[in-house]
């Protein structure tokens, strides 16, 4: 790919009006255009944006999908989520590497291709999934890998690859009020303008809607607090950084229910008095971006976005899409805002919370994709939109993947039991279920009567089902490594703790573990829970320790009754010396 580097950089600089706050967007575009960010690119950016080079380099080193050493012209990432593993991703990655004669993680010498692993790409129910030059391909089976290797060897441009590979469908298995709602374009916006912001917030309150990202903060309160701030400018941010492994409902909503998302953001803007909204879309969902941009454009054409919305003087609101660049922590709202501002995604010190001090220091409502969708329904149709038999006020979208017959999206009322969920999706041989992703809870079959609710099992909706054949320590290890990889490294307990957790869990998995390692992990977990800066560090050791608590056999059978076993490997430690002695003996 012979791209004139400086032309790409200058084009991006112009596109983003040389705004230093957009540096991350520029870097991402440059990376996708030329597979590398060169020192010369950094120099031009640095001079044009008046930003130290080291700060630009710091961004490249922080975000997974930015690189200052060249990736292949075909830059391929296999999703390394446990759900992809279960569908054979590791084998497929090995197959592709072998077919192309390339080592995992290392671009080949002629710069044709690089194959690497990445954190969950959000195609959990249709894995193994890969990203090729930023674009997603699902269901990568043996035949597809063989075909892919051929296309790459023959230098076939991505645009000419089989079209059906790029069609990502949504398995909408069970529809509730949201998935079943056929909203007329502008329906919620019209009604919001008609009834006014007080009424919008009152109806949200009456509906009982709470944030669907996992924290469950009452939506109306967030909007109300933001609205009550004394300032000229406020912002609406839609958190579409769906990085929790096993979660893909936001992907489906953005794919099929974008109208609800944008309408919800607009309604929020009207309610809180914001004129600008941002959709922060994770890098892995690049394949959704173009269509979303087109939909925004159409909404502008019919004056549902822009100035004087639907002809109402002084009601202005527009939406921009901001892309992530590969960082799980950015799903945390304050880290997301940092990232939007073009910085490394480090969670801020809270309080103050974004609702009073958010994007550019101004009051900002950050809500999850799903929350905005439900808000759209509620504002358009009233609080009854989410009423269910008059008793359960709220619904939840579940992302179900793993060992079941019908993985996909299920819209269920809160109050549903885990048992009902397993029956719905056809999970016949349940050993355990990871609810809420790696940071959530591992549920054993003793707990199938627990219910989805804010009081019992509060979750962002991810269900990963493991049948009797799965090794739960392998699962926990995958999650533990995920947290280490994604730790932003800001605070001591998380940065060092996640690394030690992986070392100790690996030691156990390798058969060198002992009682003392488990005790050590428990003490470290306590420290990480108490002292970490954000939820990542607080939850990072939960998978391995919950596995030990609920499925002790998965760990005990590896450690036996040993009280202490060293990790020290004598053979590995003398390998180098042996080599030297052998070399010297020859000469």
């Amino acid at each position, binding site marked *: 790919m012979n791209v004139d580097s400086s032309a790409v950089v200058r084009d991006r600089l112009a596109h983003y009006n040389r705004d230093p706050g957009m540096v991350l967007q520029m870097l991402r575009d440059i990376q996708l255009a030329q597979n590398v960010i060169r020192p010369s690119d950094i120099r031009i950016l640095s001079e044009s944006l008046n930003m*130290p*080079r*080291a*700060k630009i*380099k*710091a961004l490249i*080193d*922080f975000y997974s999908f930015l690189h200052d050493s060249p990736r292949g012209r075909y830059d391929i990432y296999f999703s390394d989520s446990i759900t992809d593993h279960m569908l054979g991703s590791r084998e497929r990655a090995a197959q592709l590497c072998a077919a192309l004669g390339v080592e995992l993680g290392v671009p080949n010498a002629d710069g044709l291709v690089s194959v690497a692993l990445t954190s969950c790409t959000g195609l959990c129910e249709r894995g193994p999934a890969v990203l090729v030059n930023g674009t997603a391909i699902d269901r990568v089976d043996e035949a597809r890998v063989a075909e892919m290797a051929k296309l790459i060897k023959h230098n076939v441009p991505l645009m000419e690859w089989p079209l059906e590979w790029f069609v990502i469908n949504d398995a909408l298995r069970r529809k509730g009020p949201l998935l079943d709602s056929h909203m007329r374009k502008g329906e919620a916006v019209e009604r919001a303008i008609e009834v006014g912001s007080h009424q919008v917030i009152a109806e949200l309150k009456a509906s009982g809607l709470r944030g669907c990202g996992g924290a469950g903060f009452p939506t109306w309160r967030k909007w109300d607090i933001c609205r009550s701030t004394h300032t000229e400018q406020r912002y609406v941010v839609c958190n579409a950084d769906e990085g929790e492994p096993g979660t893909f409902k936001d992907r489906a909503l953005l794919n099929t229910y974008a109208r609800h998302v944008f309408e919800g953001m607009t309604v929020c803007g009207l309610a809180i008095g914001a004129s600008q909204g941002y959709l922060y879309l994770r890098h892995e969902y690049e394949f959704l971006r173009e269509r979303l941009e087109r939909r925004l454009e159409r909404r502008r054409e019919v004056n549902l976005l822009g100035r004087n919305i639907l002809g109402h003087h002084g009601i202005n609101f527009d939406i921009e899409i901001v892309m992530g660049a590969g*960082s799980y922590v950015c799903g945390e709202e304050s880290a997301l805002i940092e990232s939007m501002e073009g910085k*490394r995604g480090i969670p801020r*010190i809270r309080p103050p919370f974004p609702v009073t001090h958010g994007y550019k220091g101004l009051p900002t409502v950050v809500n999850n994709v799903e929350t905005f969708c439900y808000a759209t329904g509620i504002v358009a149709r009233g609080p009854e939109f989410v009423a269910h038999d008059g008793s359960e006020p709220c619904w939840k979208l579940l992302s179900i993947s793993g060992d079941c017959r019908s993985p996909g999206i299920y819209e269920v009322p809160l109050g549903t039991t885990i048992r009902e969920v397993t029956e719905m999706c056809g999970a016949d041989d349940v050993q355990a279920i990871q609810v809420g992703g790696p940071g959530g809870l591992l549920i054993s079959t003793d707990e199938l009567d627990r219910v989805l609710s804010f009081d019992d099992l509060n979750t962002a909706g991810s269900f990963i089902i493991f049948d009797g054949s799965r090794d739960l320590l392998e699962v926990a290890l995958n999650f533990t490594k995920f947290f*280490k*990889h*994604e*730790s*932003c*490294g*800001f*605070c*001591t*307990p998380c*940065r*060092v*703790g*996640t*690394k*030690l957790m992986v*070392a100790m869990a690996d030691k156990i998995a390798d058969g060198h573990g002992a009682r*003392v390692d488990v005790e*050590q992990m428990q*003490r*470290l977990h*306590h*420290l990480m829970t*108490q*002292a*970490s*800066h954000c939820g990542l560090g607080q939850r990072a050791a939960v998978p391995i320790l919950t596995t030990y608590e609920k499925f002790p056999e998965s760990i005990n059978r590896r450690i036996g009754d040993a*009280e*202490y076993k*060293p*990790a*020290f490997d*004598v053979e*590995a*430690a*003398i*390998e*180098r*010396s*042996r080599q*030297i*002695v052998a070399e*010297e*003996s020859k000469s």
Partner: protein
Amino acid sequence: MSGRIRIDGVSIPFADGQTVIQAAYDAGVHIPHLCYHPDYAANGSCKLCTCQIDGRQVSSCTTKATDGMVVESNTEELNSERRALTQLLFVEGNHHCPSCEASGNCELQNQAYRLGMTALIFPDFTAGRATDATHPDILLNRDRCIYCELCVRASRDTDGKDIFCISGRSENKSLAINSDNGMLDESGLTVDDAAANVCPVGAIIKKRQGFRKPIGQRDYDARQVTHNKVRLPEIKTPLVKAPGEKVTVATCSLAGCFGCHMSFLDIDERIIQLAERVSFDRSPINDIKHISGPVDIGLVEGGVCNTENIETLREFRDNCGILISVGACAMDGGVPALRNGLDVRDLLEESYINGRGIENPQIPVDRELPYILEKVSPIHEVVKVDFFLPGCPPPADAFWQILTDIVDGRQPDLPYDLLQFD
């Protein structure tokens, strides 16, 4: 809003806008910390200042004081968490006090003292980060960086130069320099800059100024005593001896300098008292080369650097009821561990081929010689260790204390002023 808060039961005032640690600092109440500095905005990353505030554990450097706030800081639970955080930082970087220019003036070491850290219980990472020696007057040793970001803040807020920034994430986090070549020499940093003077550890140091003050007169040599004794792990089965029966002790030095043994001999005439109660098995004191059978106590000095060390160490572990890791090298590899991160071939070539005054240069290949290990390891990574006696060397009184405690059947504790890292 101003008012009063209570820290560990003591009421102190605070001024409008002050955080808990600022109020404590002004009132002369010490809350352990590393990344906090009164001159700069809080960073909140080291987490050492975590306190129990109104029932929740939060960083006291980022929590604003409010009237009537109840803060617990000096509790066993919090200090034990802080000790663990200190241990995490010690194993994450290369913090070998005896060979560090900042020893005695190092806030990390100071906290290890204050919190009574005796052992590094976690596996050592052996950081291998790039050192920057390009500046004529200032050296950046990234292996000792604890990411407190004080230099970042000082350079940005005081010097107005914005020379440092944090790059990367997780284990690939690093301290980066804003200059055209990414190095200190082109950064514009000068020795008088606040950023060159604020580093609480030995990461940013001035050249030609190491070990300037003699031991005893350095900043943290006069230690703030927060407790009288450092608690050591509990002995589950105390030694029981028949009247007249002596406790048997074996000692050895692996990759060490025998300095710990010399310090042991500094118990001077008390060795006669000891000899009445103790008989020595293998030890350089009597030149016995192998342990003759089970002994009660083993003292091991030095780290593990070759296969012979492993054999000796395992022999000790198999035969000693209580195994004590003695001195900095046994505890973290110490001075010999400075070679960690260098290729074994480079080491051998330096020693046997390129070094000065070598005749008949060749790398020895005799298979009778022990193999050199890839890196020098602390002994507790190879065998189980019961007690740690830190120091370079540990003071004679520390040997006396731990041995007499065990011989008398007492739970050993280390008098606080005998805790030593260099």
